[in-house]
């Protein structure tokens, strides 16, 4: 196997710049392996966040050749190694150092979403009954590993810096998991419309394309939530019907 060059962001803030590192490639390596090898060989101070190396912790998110991806799930044999492979930190979050960004904004946003509020138990022993079909729909959303690649690629955050007004795809997935839950009784539609800025999403489906868990974010979470917001605030016929048949 040949050597390959990796063009990696190094430094902090304004002084951050690309630096080329060359390392030897062996079969089966992923980008995270190469970064670790570079750390061991020539850049011991190179900062990189990682944990499981199995695509389940969501820590090693970065932009590889310009695309938001998990470093641990990007095999080198899928990349063109005849030219330098660029590895950058995510652009939608404040840069800390090298490949590490501060994603804590996401956790602050998540705290503002109303928590799960189940209906009264169905059985005297305090348990509930749900049908598999109803559970399946929200189960997809629970695959999220919070890698925040969807947040990174979303142009509302990345290019328009609407962090103060827009929650982002990850939090719409989280809200959809609660809002569509068969037991949940809470109403989050006003929050979605106003504080979370669901209307900023213009359905580019970039979030769906980068999701390493293949969650159909736009079609199964965001658009159904948009439709529920339309029901609640914009559709006069639905509002009229609701007078006669109130929903939850």
């Amino acid at each position, binding site marked *: 196997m040949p050597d390959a060059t990796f063009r990696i962001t190094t430094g902090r*803030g304004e002084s951050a710049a690309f630096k080329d590192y060359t390392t030897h490639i062996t079969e089966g390596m992923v980008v995270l392996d190469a970064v670790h090898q570079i750390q061991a060989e020539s850049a011991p101070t190179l900062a990189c966040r990682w944990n499981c190396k199995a695509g389940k912790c969501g820590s090693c998110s970065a*932009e590889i*050749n*310009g*695309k*938001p991806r998990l470093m641990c799930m990007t095999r080198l044999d899928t990349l*063109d190694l005849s*030219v330098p492979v*660029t590895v950058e930190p995510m*652009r*939608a*979050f*404040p*840069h800390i150092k090298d490949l590490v960004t501060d994603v804590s*904004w996401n956790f*602050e*946003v998540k705290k503002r979403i109303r928590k799960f509020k189940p209906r009264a138990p169905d059985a005297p022993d305090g348990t509930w009954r749900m*049908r598999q*079909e*109803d559970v399946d729909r929200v189960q997809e959303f629970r695959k999220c590993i919070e890698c925040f690649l969807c947040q990174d*690629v979303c*142009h*509302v955050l990345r*290019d*328009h*810096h*609407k*962090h*103060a*007004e*827009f*929650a982002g795809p990850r939090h719409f997935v989280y809200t959809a998991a609660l*809002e*569509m*839950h*068969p037991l*949940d009784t809470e109403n989050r539609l006003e929050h979605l419309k106003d*504080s*979370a*800025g669901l*209307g*900023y*999403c*213009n*359905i*580019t*489906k*970039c979030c769906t394309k*980068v999701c390493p868990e293949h969650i159909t974010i*736009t*079609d199964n979470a965001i*658009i*159904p939530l*948009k*439709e*529920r917001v*339309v029901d609640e605030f*914009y*559709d006069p016929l639905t509002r009229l019907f609701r007078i006669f048949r109130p929903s*939850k």
Partner: protein
Amino acid sequence: MSGADLHLPQMRRLGETKRKDAWWIQPTLVFLGFSAFIVYSTWAALQGAHFYFGGAAGANYLSPFYSPLLFEVPGRAVTGHSWFGAAPDWLLRMWPSFIPFSPALLILWAPGGFRFTCYYYRGAYYKAFWADPISCAVGEPGFRGEKYRGERRFPLIIQNIHRYFLYLAVGFIGLLAWDAVQAFRFTGADGSRHLGVGVGTLVLCINPVLLGAYTFGCHSLRHLIGGRKDCISDCSAARAGAYRGVTCLNRRHMLFAWLSLFWVGFTDFYVRMCSTGYITDLRLI
């Protein structure tokens, strides 16, 4: 929501990216595809002629751009398809003098509005025509910056009207299906009606099938038919089945959006070519 004080990387300029794939191909193809359709359909709708093919062989083909045909076009041969006969004088007087009278312009706003507000098309033309963004992880025009409003405020908040266009579009599927049935009715030399099949019949039959696959995979329909409920299992068996069917079509919404767009244009083109005599409709039965 906090976030105003975040120190974020500088915004990239239009087209600036580290992506190494040919990211520009998809928006370019979408731009060319939509532009070609808009130019052709506008031209065809403004013609007010050659939208019906009766022909010597007795065919009965009506272009989908003119269906339903509300009024006959003054000075043209009567098609027999119009709902209200000749165009009334008040309508002709109101008609702008700089464009010829065309019944297509009375109806195309409905299917056009359905496509314009469609969730798939929105995402596609925001990218291809407005570069918002031009492609995923590619820089946008700098002028928009933090002034971006998305679909949250006027004018794009109007996109929420999509479900009303859906109601109209479902009606159009029925009308176009009826036109396809009519395309099996041929008129003999003695004026008698009989069953027949021409290439145009097949073209007109495929049209409502593809339009139906597109329309019945609509995100709004998916919501209205069952998605709005947290417990779909509470719905009747028929409704739950319908939800699953719409979901199945919804997974291929983009595919059917393009196939139906192409085929509705091709159907008009075929009828127009037959009507003008450039091609001869091959009679199969």
